[in-house]
């Protein structure tokens, strides 16, 4: 009896599924979707031809959202991007559930090897910076800080704002006798990756523990979700110390520390200082086309040390010719026309040198072939 009902249940499921897919086929054949090209019923990847789907990092979401809207208005090609997080972008691309991914942290070799669609190309799109921000009502002049001091504050080794090591960097500033209240991101994020990657470069203690990653175990402090969570915490907690993306610091008028870069200069975060960091690195580019570049602690007198690319991730071999062509056309447009709107949203555009190199890289993407 049990077996019987089991069998019946499975047939019901199967029958349900088959009618479902029939309906779906009717739907797409009926051409309900607004699309420029004719809809072929079923393609190799199965998704509707009309649209490209991408998912990933939240940090560049505002600029991507603007790009895809502008691009759809200009060409009629719709590219749907959803901000599910850098890690999510990487994983969904690896599982081939999206046409492209996006991440603030480059993929590791291990992650690349697990991708089901073959080798992956990182395409830098814009640059961002992580600012060290704080809440000290008594201090009006922006603070100067060095990497090792920042690391020790986040490790809980420096606990007071009037610590002599901070004082030595800020002669003539009267620092208050306040506890440092560390605020960090509570969830995995590209911002975490960029910030911890920088700290591991400038502090051996930080490198040994907690180390670098999209999500690390902070020894002290409070967690807040998202850039806006950290922003809110810092804003209303006297003595707080946190780190947020440049766009958030700008929009919320938070003070930012000038940080000593590799050339020994104290630099305030700004779009120009970020582009300078990228320029310094991209001048020394090796001939390889692996754009997983770290530009934290970059050389150059103007360079802001906690800068980073954000990447769009695509497979080097694209199975679906129609989709691939649309994607490549978009990327070309983004690297040239799209970059113009970056600064208005507090993102730094790519250095011109890099754009030229990326053009030739895009040309090497294989279209319409199986890996």
């Amino acid at each position, binding site marked *: 009896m049990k077996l019987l009902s089991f069998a019946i249940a499975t047939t*019901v499921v199967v029958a349900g599924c088959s009618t479902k897919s029939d309906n779906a086929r009717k739907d797409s054949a009926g051409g309900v979707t607004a699309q420029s090209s004719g809809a072929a019923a079923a393609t190799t990847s199965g998704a509707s031809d009309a649209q490209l789907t991408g998912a990933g990092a939240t940090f560049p979401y505002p600029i991507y959202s603007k790009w895809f809207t502008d691009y759809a208005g200009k060409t009629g090609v719709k590219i749907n991007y959803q901000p599910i997080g850098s890690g*999510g972008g990487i994983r969904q691309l690896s599982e081939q559930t999206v046409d492209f991914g996006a991440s603030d942290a480059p993929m590791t070799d291990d992650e690349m090897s697990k991708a089901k669609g073959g080798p992956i190309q990182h395409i830098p799109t814009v640059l961002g910076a992580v600012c060290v921000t704080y809440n000290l009502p008594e201090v009006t002049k922006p603070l100067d800080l060095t990497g090792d001091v920042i690391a020790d504050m986040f490790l809980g080794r420096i606990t007071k704002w009037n610590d002599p090591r901070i004082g030595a960097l800020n002669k003539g500033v009267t620092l208050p006798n306040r506890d440092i209240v560390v605020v960090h991101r509570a*969830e995995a994020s590209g911002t975490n990756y960029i910030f911890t990657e920088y700290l591991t470069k400038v502090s051996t203690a930080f490198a040994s523990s907690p180390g670098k990653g*999209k*999500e690390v175990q902070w020894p002290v402090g409070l967690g807040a*979700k998202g850039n806006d969570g950290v922003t809110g915490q810092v804003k209303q907690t006297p003595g707080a110390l946190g780190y947020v993306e440049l766009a958030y610091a700008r929009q919320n008028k938070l003070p930012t520390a000038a940080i000593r870069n590799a050339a020994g200069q104290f630099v305030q975060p700004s779009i120009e200082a970020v582009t300078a960091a990228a320029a310094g690195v991209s001048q020394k580019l090796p001939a390889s086309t692996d754009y997983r570049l770290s530009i934290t602690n970059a050389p150059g007198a103007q360079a802001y040390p906690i800068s980073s690319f954000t990447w769009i991730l695509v497979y080097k071999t694209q199975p679906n010719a129609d989709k691939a062509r649309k994607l490549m056309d978009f990327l070309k447009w983004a690297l040239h026309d799209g970059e113009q709107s970056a600064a208005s949203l507090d993102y730094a555009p790519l250095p011109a040198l890099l754009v030229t190199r990326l053009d030739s890289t895009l040309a090497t993407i294989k279209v319409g072939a199986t890996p």
Partner: protein
Amino acid sequence: MTDVVARDPSQATAATGTPTRPSRSWTEIGSEIGDRIYSWSITGFAALVPILLLLIFISVGIAAWPALRTFGFTFLTSSDWDPVAGHFGAAPAIYGTIVSSILALVIATPLALGVAVFLSEFAPNWLRGPVAFAVDLLAAVPSVIYGLWGIFVLIPFLREFLMPFLRDTLHLGVLPLFAGPAYGSSMLAAGLILAIMCLPYISAVTREVLMAVPRSQREAAVGLGATRWEVIRDAVIPYARSGIIGGIILGLGRALGETMAVTMLIGNRHEIAASLFAPGYTMASLIANEFSEATGDLHLSALMAVGFVLLLVTFLVNALARWLVWQTAKER
């Protein structure tokens, strides 16, 4: 009741498409086959329910297995959640799930009981409908809207007013429960929003069981000279006790698995803190936050393991609630 008469059979069969009045023998054979098919298909549909649950258990279980095998029992007891080193312990999330839910019940239960008794015993007729509707509607408000409201209304209110008031004005800050800085996002915020969210469930079940209490119970108490409150306390509530407890536990089941609103309000920190002002984590919000960000296989598996634990806990809690509510039904 709608009027049910044996309608003109042609109308009755129009939906099913069998011939209306065929010869006798055909009818018998047809109805036999029809009965067989009907019986099989409803059995099949019914069997889908356990199959679905089994599928969920199996697929989440399989995905959770690597982490459970790697960490074993320490997965439940360790507070170490370190994706870089690959150590995962879900204790803070489990603790946060339990504390936020208990807090929600502590706040919601008296209110829900009060409302339920009010509606079933005292409310004037013109008020009964609107109040019942307003409370029931709380269950219909989507989680994400509670989250939205929480971020922009509840959190600022807690931060600017309620937390400082509790801590400083009432001097409750000496207790570890109300100590520490007022950030807004906290266990307290999550508990409050959960209280609002499980209130309608508790009050609905309570109302149902109170309605089931026989009139004679009340009349007997009144006859013995009890006051209106004593009738409720000594005659009505004891009679409905296990049903009420079932309702509370049903609310607990809701609170344990609530995702979106809590994710937006609890502050998401892997730490077991004594203070309700401190941020925390729940199992559901941990999955919602990190499932999309987890790239490492072990990390993903650890999240699946959290899902599996959550599945088990809610399974047990709901099973208990169900059993208790049935107990009341049996006594009827």
